[in-house]
């Protein structure tokens, strides 16, 4: 698995959110690049973001802090950050620290869509 890679997908027709894939590690080294990319996206008035964590092998406090900052900023703009399918290892970190009640974590894109566009 790569140490770090990030892809911001173009907005698809009918999609109410932007999808971001992050691969590898989110630690004190890679988080600067991650935050720069994500805050750049939010600067474009994007306020619904889904980050796919299914290939994130490691997250440190720096990564959690970045996700918390993004969540905070999006909620202030009446938006939301949704985390899709974190790996078991990353989910355990969220769970033991108490972040599963704070972050919106989903298992499918359909579930994310329900959060971004509640019927």
């Amino acid at each position, binding site marked *: 698995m790569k*140490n770090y890679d990030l892809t911001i997908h173009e907005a698809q027709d009918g999609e109410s959110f932007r999808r971001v894939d992050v691969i590898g*590690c989110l*630690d*004190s*080294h*890679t*988080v*600067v*690049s991650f935050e720069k990319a994500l805050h750049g996206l939010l600067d474009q008035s994007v306020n619904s973001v889904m980050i796919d964590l299914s290939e994130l092998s*490691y997250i*440190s*406090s*720096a990564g*959690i*802090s*970045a*996700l*918390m*900052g993004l*969540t*905070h*900023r999006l909620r202030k703009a009446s938006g939301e950050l949704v985390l899709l399918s974190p790996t078991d*290892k990353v989910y*355990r*970190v969220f*769970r*033991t*620290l*108490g*972040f599963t009640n*704070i972050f919106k974590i989903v298992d499918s894109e359909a579930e994310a869509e329900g959060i971004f566009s509640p019927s």
Partner: protein
Amino acid sequence: MSGTDRPAPCGEVIDLEIRCLPDTRMLAPVRAMATAIAAQQGFSPDQIDQIEMAVDEACANVVRHAYRHLGISPDLSDEERAAIHAAVSEGTAGDCTIRLRVSLAEDRLVFQVIDNGIGIDKTPPGVARVEEFVERGGGGGLGMLIIRNYMDEVTYDQPEGQGTILTMTKYLGNPEPTA
């Protein structure tokens, strides 16, 4: 659990020590080393993850706080990074390495993260609760909370005129931490 409740280590104690540059690029190889040692000692997968994270947070704190005067940051150019590495390696910046000392005993694993940097306050920085971190919308301080939650014993020593020695102990067979 109090350290005084613990029996003395039994069996052979093996020490090893590495030095690394105070650079966030070093965090991934340091984590790999910590996880390999923890696995070899027989810790569970969850405990290995906790040790990995605690060692990572401790070393990241040294780069971020103890050696902040060096100006190491992830977005430095290769040239800027090489200049700082050279100053540290040649000693012109003083002894600014991170020493990671590991003691392996039958019932425990002890990691010491030692620096010669700017001493931090006797009470290490960090948020007391996750709620505090959430209310602030992130920021720093979560690393120390993670270290305290994930390791069984954590002590700070700041010998006169030196940097900081962070000692983190994990015992085999302890229950999993809770939030």
